[in-house]
């Protein structure tokens, strides 16, 4: 959630389908950041944050984020990140307090922790709205701010309510199993799951886009739900292709290693090498599947969105993205994090290069809208970065 690229990308207009009036006028997004500059900014700010016991971290966040936003330009004009450090600091402190209570509660009484989890789950949609409002409120382009409507009802519907529907597959499994056909039940449950999940994800994207506004216009969304079934069906295929060879490879290796080892494999206390092996094999497979879903969902998000007469075109491709993420992960791992600024910069560059705004006009026809422009607290956005809530952007 701290991915600056995503943050700056979310509020941009995106296109895929040819707009009502046929046009070839394309406005490209550009990213002008340099890894060297960003590295120096980043390391100095991390060092200052640590030395000040985290107090400075709010200022650090604002500075690093401003660098990423301002180096992303559309039509020659940079985006701007306008949040103030003090509200971020307040939100961060409150979040630490809440998280500390939560972490400690589990050691005294798990029941307490369960209550906390339920409480957070109940507040989650509210948190999502607040967090989106914060990001939109403090992102601007050419002096106009983005805006996110405070649609709490919609958030509760699409980020909490619909998950109760997910109970249907499990009920089905249970019912059919009780009637004596557990295999058939599993199949039916799986089918129900496949039917519901893409539908939920599609509507969540539609909700997010529909509630964003810029320059007196609302974003609108085509919401062709069928597209999401395509993504998830293909994702299932990609998962199979990734996991089967990985598991085969790992089992072969495990058997070979265990042969020379007289001690029987103890499932209760697997050796560290076994755990390491599982991670080493599963991480690339997981990354392979996650990248696929992420890439396709991002493309769908932008390509179905529209702002005024402008559409968007996102052309992220699977293999380049996978290569990017894989090399990023390896570089960050082998430099103990020092390659992180470089990784962020090249990700931002790739993403900006594959996003276009299409529409007749020079992007100067947006006007300040009448939406309320009060200040918004940063606690929600801090909490959601800590909890790593995946809003699906």
């Amino acid at each position, binding site marked *: 959630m701290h991915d600056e690229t995503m943050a700056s990308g979310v509020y941009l207009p995106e296109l895929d389908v040819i707009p009502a009036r046929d046009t070839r006028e394309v406005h490209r997004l550009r990213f002008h950041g340099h890894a060297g500059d960003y590295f120096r900014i980043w390391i*100095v*700010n991390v060092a200052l944050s*640590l*030395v000040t016991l985290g107090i400075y971290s709010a200022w650090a966040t604002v*500075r690093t984020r401003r660098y990423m936003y301002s180096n992303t330009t559309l039509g020659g004009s940079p985006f*701007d990140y306008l949040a103030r450090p003090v509200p971020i600091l307040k939100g961060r402190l409150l979040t630490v307090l809440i998280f*500390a209570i939560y972490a400690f509660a589990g050691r*005294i009484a798990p029941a307490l922790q369960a209550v906390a989890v339920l409480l957070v789950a109940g507040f989650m949609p509210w948190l999502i709205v607040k967090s989106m409002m914060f990001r939109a409120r403090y992102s601007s382009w050419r*002096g*106009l701010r983005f805006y996110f409507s405070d649609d709490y009802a919609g958030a509760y519907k699409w980020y909490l309510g619909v998950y109760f529907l997910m109970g249907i597959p499990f009920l089905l499994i249970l019912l059919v199993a009780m009637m004596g056909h557990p295999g058939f039940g599993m199949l039916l449950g799986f089918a129900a799951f496949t039917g519901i999940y893409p539908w939920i994800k599609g509507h969540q994207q539609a909700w997010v886009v529909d509630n964003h506004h810029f320059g007196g216009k609302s974003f609108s969304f085509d919401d062709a739900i069928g597209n999401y079934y395509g993504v998830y069906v293909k994702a299932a295929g990609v998962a199979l292709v990734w996991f089967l060879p990985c598991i085969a490879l790992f089992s072969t290796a495990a058997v070979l290693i265990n042969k020379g080892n007289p001690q029987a494999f103890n499932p209760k206390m697997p050796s560290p090498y076994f755990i390491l092996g599982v991670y080493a094999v599963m991480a690339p497979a997981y990354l392979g599947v996650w990248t696929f879903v992420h890439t396709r969902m991002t493309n769908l998000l932008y390509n179905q969105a529209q702002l005024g007469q402008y559409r968007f075109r996102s052309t992220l491709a699977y293999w380049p993205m996978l290569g990017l993420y894989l090399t990023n992960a390896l570089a960050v791992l082998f430099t103990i994090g020092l390659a992180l600024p470089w990784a962020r910069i090249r990700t931002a560059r790739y993403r900006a290069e594959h996003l276009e705004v299409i529409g007749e006009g020079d992007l100067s026809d947006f006007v300040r809208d009448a939406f309320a422009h009060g200040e918004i607290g940063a606690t929600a956005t801090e909490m959601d970065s800590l909890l790593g809530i995946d809003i699906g952007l």
Partner: protein
Amino acid sequence: MVPAIYFDGRSTHATRVDAWRDGDTLRWRGADGTQEWSAPWITIEPSARVTGVPFTLHVRDGGHLQIDHDALPADWFPRHHLIERVVDRLERRWTVALAGIAVVVASLFVLFEFGLPWAADRVSAHLPRAVEQAMGKQSLDALEGRLLMPTALPAERQSHLQAVFRHFVGGMPGVPGVRLAFYGSKALGANAFALPGGTIVFTDALAEAVPDDDAFIAVMAHELGHQANHHMLRQVLRSSGVLIVASMLMGDVTSMGGVAAGIPMFLVDSHYSRGFEEDADRFAFRALASQGIDPEAFVHAMQALERAHPELKGQELRYASSHPLTDERIARAHEASLQFRAAKATADARAGR
């Protein structure tokens, strides 16, 4: 004249302008010369300097002027963003960046090595006793019936050991409300650990493995050392602290928090445990000596433990409360034993005279 781009804050229309300072006023004029604007200098809010990022000069009516990073005259806003001015100067130098790496490494070390333990100990000292008891009760409830089964020790052996325990604790100040509980446990083997709130768990296998009462007391004394110093509570607070701080850092430093957070957790945990083990050992040696038992009994107990866990020979012996059996610890026990004997010899000599 400074080239700039003017946005009026009411639309996304961009106007190329030239801006200049005219006494107490900022003025800017369209490139074609037809339009001119102005604003009082003190109402202008400039953005802070960041390498490669254009300046925005916010005007009170919501508009702003965008000026290239290198184009803003140095004397225009000398008193704004003083802190960020310094930070910006630091961010421009590669030497500072290299120093920054050293600072990050050093402060992480100090934070995890000293800062967190210190803070956790302060908190644990102020927590009500009820919290500690709740923690111990919860852990015992979680273990009972899963790892800990009802004891199969003969009743007379149990009552004998209980009596030895009570006698030992009775002669010792500073450990109120402790109790000894026996459990059978295949998974834990020969084992003992101190739960917060006063319960010391002793497994049947260990009760059978200890060669004599003195060795039994030595293990007991060690666990009482954990108890008296509230080690479990402090350990829990420390690892919670590590978890919280690591997540906060990861939130900003990397999104691979899940994996990475586990590493400091593990390092710190095993490390702290060792410090606590030494404390508990010292406590045990003192307690044994004060009741006239040779601390050498501790070595006997440890050797018995090692015999009961033949598969771990040569490795660090770990169990629920992590008791690495190292040569160091044995050496310290020998040393304590020597001191004890010397003191005893002196005392005997005095008594004899």
